[in-house]
């Protein structure tokens, strides 16, 4: 009897149509390992099947853009042979289940995305949304998430310099944890993921593989219901200490000339990293899965391909470099194993103690994954409210006090004081202002960074709300004296299979695109998180925008502190 029953297919999150496509591509029934691979590669999280069509409409080009979306992170030129590399990524579902570890591994993942490309991370930010302050879970989630972000970032020695925090009942059952990292690299030493060189060794470095988070990527693509809190899928535990060693070891190796391609193992671990590298390079891969460093006994090819153990990297080395590269990883006391080689087959061949455990064509899987044009409804326009029609219920001073004391406007000092925001000694504008500024080490230049989004605007009018988020990021950067250069985005929405929600997503994309074009402020990287719903209730649409700008001279930046009395306050704009 076949092990691939309809139940097995369903539990892997594949629809009937998708499974038919699997049979077409394989020309036979897949085995369980192969099915697992299809399932994670085609999950919303990895394939962007609902969002791809609209993401393509975002402007991604400018003379200073070196690399737009499609790599581990976006790259912009900041002059003098230097580049800023950055991206934002969500870890919403894991953080709801286990706030500390979920948030921590989110930070770890985004930092790997950035240092994989050859950059030393120099600033972290985090955009957080929690449920109503009085909701019984909020306190626990907030304190766990903040501790997790701090726990990971502080240990890595990367300052967490900014972010945003909102509260709204729509996030009661589905918080948002979006983490952003900005790194610094030399433009002539940036690393990409396209594998090349038939016969070149495929190398695994970092932590050993365990049975962590198997199915994590599919979890991030399915709605929550009350039962999933009990199902308690394995949550990954982060090990920032190992990641710090991995960072230093990778940067040391990158200073040599041994790497052909490199990719971190994020969601869907070994599967997505190997397929992406092979697909981008148009090559095949033979993987010797029994050579993968394992943390537990009795692991199967299925588990090895799907594990989401953290703090791991996959790379292709130039031939003959194995020993020299290994010496670097030995110094940092990290695992290093040659686990395969590139082939000209354009197939992924999985070997297990000499037998074939799986054999899949690469391109149809990686590139021809499903792409949907989901039906969508425009959000109905709301009536304009005239200021005169609003009844004044309390004196202005009382209203002001209420506003300032509200959860959304109160001070965030409690949060950022748990983050080391000064390590690296280049933080010249600390959290608490409009944008933070970190000096580019050993120069007078500064990078200004901010994250922004006002979800209730996006709910009211997705197009305007999307525009507003971009415009606010732009304003926050200019307010410290920086020239805005580019953004990364994190699109957090509900279930895209509902036309109303899909309409919010489409609207926000349109608004973001329009604002980016008007402001010459391209999108260079981003992340999509859909299905943020509990029991059919979607979150407020939340396209978080992470903006990066540059100051030629940090000595000339502006800060929000009023400098002396008798100064004149001026309001600009309409």
């Amino acid at each position: 009897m076949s092990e691939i029953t309809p139940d097995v297919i369903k539990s892997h999150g594949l629809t009937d149509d998708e499974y038919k496509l699997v049979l077409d591509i394989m020309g036979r029934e897949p085995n369980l390992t192969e099915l697992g691979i299809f399932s994670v590669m085609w999950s919303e999280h990895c394939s962007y099947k609902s969002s791809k069509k609209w993401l393509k409409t975002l402007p991604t080009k400018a003379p200073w853009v070196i690399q737009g979306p499609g790599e581990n992170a976006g790259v912009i030129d900041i002059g003098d042979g230097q580049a800023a590399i950055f991206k934002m990524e969500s870890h919403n579902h894991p953080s709801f289940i286990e706030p500390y570890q979920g948030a921590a591994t989110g930070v770890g993942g985004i930092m790997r995305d950035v240092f994989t490309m050859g950059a030393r991370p120099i600033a972290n930010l985090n955009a957080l949304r929690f449920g109503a302050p009085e909701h019984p879970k909020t306190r626990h989630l907030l304190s766990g998430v903040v501790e997790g972000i701090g726990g990971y970032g502080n240990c890595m020695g990367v300052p967490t310099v900014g972010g945003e925090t909102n509260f709204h009942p729509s996030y009661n059952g589905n918080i948002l944890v979006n983490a952003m990292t900005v790194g610094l690299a030399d433009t002539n030493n940036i690393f990409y993921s396209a594998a090349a060189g038939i016969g070149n060794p495929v190398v695994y470095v970092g932590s050993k593989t365990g049975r962590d988070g198997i199915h994590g990527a599919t979890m991030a693509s399915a709605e929550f219901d009350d039962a999933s809190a009990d199902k308690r899928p394995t949550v990954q535990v982060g090990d920032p200490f190992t990641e710090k060693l991995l960072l230093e070891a990778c940067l040391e190796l990158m200073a040599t000339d041994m790497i052909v391609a490199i990719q971190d193992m994020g969601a869907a671990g070994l599967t997505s990293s190997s397929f992406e590298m092979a697909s981008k390079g148009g090559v095949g891969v033979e993987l010797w899965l029994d050579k993968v460093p394992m943390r537990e006994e009795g692991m199967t090819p299925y588990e090895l391909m799907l594990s989401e153990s953290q703090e791991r990297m996959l790379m292709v080395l130039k031939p003959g470099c194995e020993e020299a590269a290994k010496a670097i990883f030995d110094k940092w006391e990290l695992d290093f194993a040659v686990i395969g080689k590139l082939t000209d087959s354009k197939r992924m061949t999985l070997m297990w103690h000499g037998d074939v455990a799986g054999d899949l064509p690469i391109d149809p899987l990686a590139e021809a994954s499903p792409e949907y044009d989901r039906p969508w409804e425009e959000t109905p326009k709301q009536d304009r409210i005239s200021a005169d029609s609003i009844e004044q219920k309390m004196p202005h001073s009382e209203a002001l006090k209420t506003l300032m004391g509200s959860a959304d406007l109160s001070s965030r000092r409690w949060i950022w004081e748990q983050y080391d925001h000064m390590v690296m000694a280049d933080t010249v504008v600390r959290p608490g202002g409009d944008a933070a500024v970190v000096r580019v080490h050993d120069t007078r230049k500064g990078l200004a960074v901010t994250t922004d989004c006002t979800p209730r605007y996006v709910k009211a009018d997705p197009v305007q709300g999307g525009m507003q988020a971009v415009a606010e990021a732009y304003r926050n950067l200019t307010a410290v004296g920086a020239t805005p250069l580019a953004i990364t985005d994190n699109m957090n929405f509900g279930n895209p299979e509902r036309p109303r929600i899909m309409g919010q997503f489409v609207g926000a994309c349109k608004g973001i695109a329009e604002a980016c074009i008007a402001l010459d402020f391209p999108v260079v990287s981003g992340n999509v998180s859909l299905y943020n719903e509990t029991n059919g209730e979607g979150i407020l649409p939340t396209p978080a925008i992470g903006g990066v700008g540059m100051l030629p001279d940090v000595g000339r930046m502006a800060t929000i502190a009023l400098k002396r009395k008798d100064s004149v306050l001026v309001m600009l704009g309409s």
Partner: protein
Amino acid sequence: MKARVHVTLKNGVLDPQGKAVHHALQGLGFAGVEDVRQGKFIELELDGTDVEKARNDVTEMCEKLLANTVIENYDIDIVA
């Protein structure tokens, strides 16, 4: 009455602390160590004398606070 609670990581969950301690012990020349796992040990001083009630209370404390049951197991020992 005393309750002694052990909170340990579930099987298969990565234990970065145990791993680092193991490594450090090897560095110190202790050769015969095969694995190290680190957990928590919590001692509670309880009033009352009803062992069954104490066990129930402490179980509830574990579920609610002392252990993170997503990744941890707990084990309760009541010493009357």
